[in-house]
């Protein structure tokens, strides 16, 4: 555990593979920026790896101030022990107050190992993070500016908010797709800081024999928010609206069969009886009539918003929010409202 350091930075573990940053790490940069601004401190990113041309600049464009770069050919493939050593070493050296990881396969392997070595508190799979003053009910002591780590528990029927009072850094993994990706700003300035650290050969005990990476599939099942478009979108060009709304909200793109048959988007996005069955926290059906075969794949969603010009469209019967209107007008308004929400 490190000392409580109120000037400590807000850090992101910059997960990358083969020189490509993980989407989740890019999303986290925006969150780190926001938390750092609230705390009045700098946002940092830890970037270990082998060939990483341009990655530090990308992190800066996403909102990071200081990028700590650890370049070593032996770090080309992720391995827990050396990566954990890098993080623990830098945490001890720079005493950040918050360290965030994507709740990815890599993040969920690495973060608990680091938290254990640091004897720090750690919450897995958060869906949101906030800064708030918290009173310890036992000691009545008020802890200023703590990180609230918000996550669903017990199958998602409960939202738990976790804090750690004085076991720092405050650590969490954050689910992919729950934080909207910030627009990159290529003009942003930041520091790229090479960190010389000697990694003993004994840390590299695990030998990679073979590796097979699959094309990233459309992750409809795992998405917390899905924005789906139907025949009412009208054209492949208009379907951009669906992609834009999904990006603004941090969600995946879904479709009805009419949209797939119309060539607006690939079949792997289809929701319904002959597509994927989904159950996200929020499903937005835009220009979808709500045929029974479509509803079968989405009506278990926790919240449903329907947008349709026809007030009698069956989709409204399974919706929580209904907007009778034209998607071409309504979606831009939604994107605007999302951008202004904070």
């Amino acid at each position, binding site marked *: 555990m490190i000392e409580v350091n109120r000037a400590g930075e807000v850090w992101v573990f910059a997960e990358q593979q083969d020189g490509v940053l993980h989407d989740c790490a890019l999303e986290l940069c925006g969150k780190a920026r926001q938390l750092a601004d609230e705390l009045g401190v700098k946002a940092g990113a830890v970037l270990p790896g082998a060939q990483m041309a341009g990655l530090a600049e990308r992190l800066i464009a996403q909102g990071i101030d200081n990028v700590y770069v650890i370049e070593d050919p032996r770090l080309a493939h992720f391995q*827990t*022990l050396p990566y954990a050593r890098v993080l623990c070493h830098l945490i001890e050296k720079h005493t950040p107050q918050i360290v965030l990881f994507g709740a*990815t*396969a*890599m993040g*969920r*392997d*690495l*973060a*608990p*190992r680091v*938290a*254990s*070595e640091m004897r720090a*508190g*750690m*919450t*897995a799979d958060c*869906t949101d993070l906030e800064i708030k003053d918290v009173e*310890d*009910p036992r000691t009545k002591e008020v802890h200023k500016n703590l990180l*609230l780590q*918000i996550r669903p*528990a*017990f199958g*998602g*029927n*409960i*939202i*738990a*908010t*976790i*804090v*750690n*009072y004085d076991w720092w850094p405050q650590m969490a993994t954050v689910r992919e797709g729950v934080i909207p990706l910030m627009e990159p700003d290529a003009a942003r300035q930041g520091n790229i800081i090479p960190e010389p650290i000697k990694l003993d050969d004994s840390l590299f005990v*695990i*030998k*990679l*024999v073979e*590796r*097979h*990476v*699959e094309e*990233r599939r459309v992750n409809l099942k795992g998405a917390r928010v899905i924005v789906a478009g139907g025949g009412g979108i009208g054209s492949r060009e208009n379907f951009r609206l669906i992609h834009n709304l999904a990006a603004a909200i941090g969600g995946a793109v879904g479709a009805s069969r009419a949209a797939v048959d119309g060539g607006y988007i690939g079949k792997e996005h289809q929701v319904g009886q002959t597509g994927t069955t989904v159950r996200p926290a*929020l499903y937005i059906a835009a220009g979808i009539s709500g045929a029974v075969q479509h509803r079968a794949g989405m009506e278990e969603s*926790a*919240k449903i918003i*329907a947008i349709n010009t026809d007030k009698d469209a069956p989709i409204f019967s*399974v919706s*929580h929010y*209904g*907007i*009778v209107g034209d998607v071409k*007008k*309504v979606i831009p*308004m*939604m994107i*605007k*409202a999302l951008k*202004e929400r904070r």
Partner: protein
Amino acid sequence: MRDDGTVNRAALPAIFNPEDLNALETALEVRDAYGGTVTAISMGPPKAADILRACLFRGADRGVLITDRRAAASDTLATSYILSRAVRTVGRFDFVFAGRQAIDGDTAQVGPQCAEKLGIPQVTYLEQMIHVKDGIARIRRNFGDGWEVVDAPVPLLVTVLGSANRPRPSAARRVMRYKRAQIEAEVAAEVKAELGSASEDERNAETARRVKELAASGLLIDQWSLDDIGADLSRCGLAGSPTKVYRVQSIVLTKEGYTEIPATEEGIRQMIHELVVDRTLG
């Protein structure tokens, strides 16, 4: 759930965490192929002895239950510390197998944290144990967007995916034998029920006698306290748990008719605001 937001596990039935069955199966397969013994370790209230009996039914050689009131309210850091002390107390080992994650919290933290406490490497998300040769385990692990095969030296901690194998069922012959396996607390409760009128000393003596008998016939499930595993109490239970539950909210879903939102900027802003407030949107 208790008022302070921690879960009252004593009020829940002891259930076998699904991926722990896969972890047990992997351990049994490794033993069956290469020899050795399988010790099942669990930490929980006395009724978690049920889980250890279930392990014995399936083929485990020994069961150990860490049960101690002072371990209550442990978060993953404290839990992994206690489990690592238990592993050390069992003695020399080549593998520690854990489920990838438990279904109550889905944290998937206890495995990696336990590996760190033991000072050994970890391989997460095992899908297949290909072989073990000269102290090196060849493991296929699945990381979601693909898979890799790695060679890792023992001693090693491995977390196991639900897709790794089909856990064997309980063996009828073993059920016959091990349904009588007990922890000391269960023996004591039994003695108390049977000899209610006897003095405490007499009951203790009878408990000790029965425990000895069970041990002699290989039917005693070890019951260890935090003292038995040499645990530093400041690292256990509430005192050793950095994370605290600050707030718990139940999500209530109602779906009676829909809210009509006017297709105006104000209407949509209001809807987005509601979705942020109820945490549908981050």
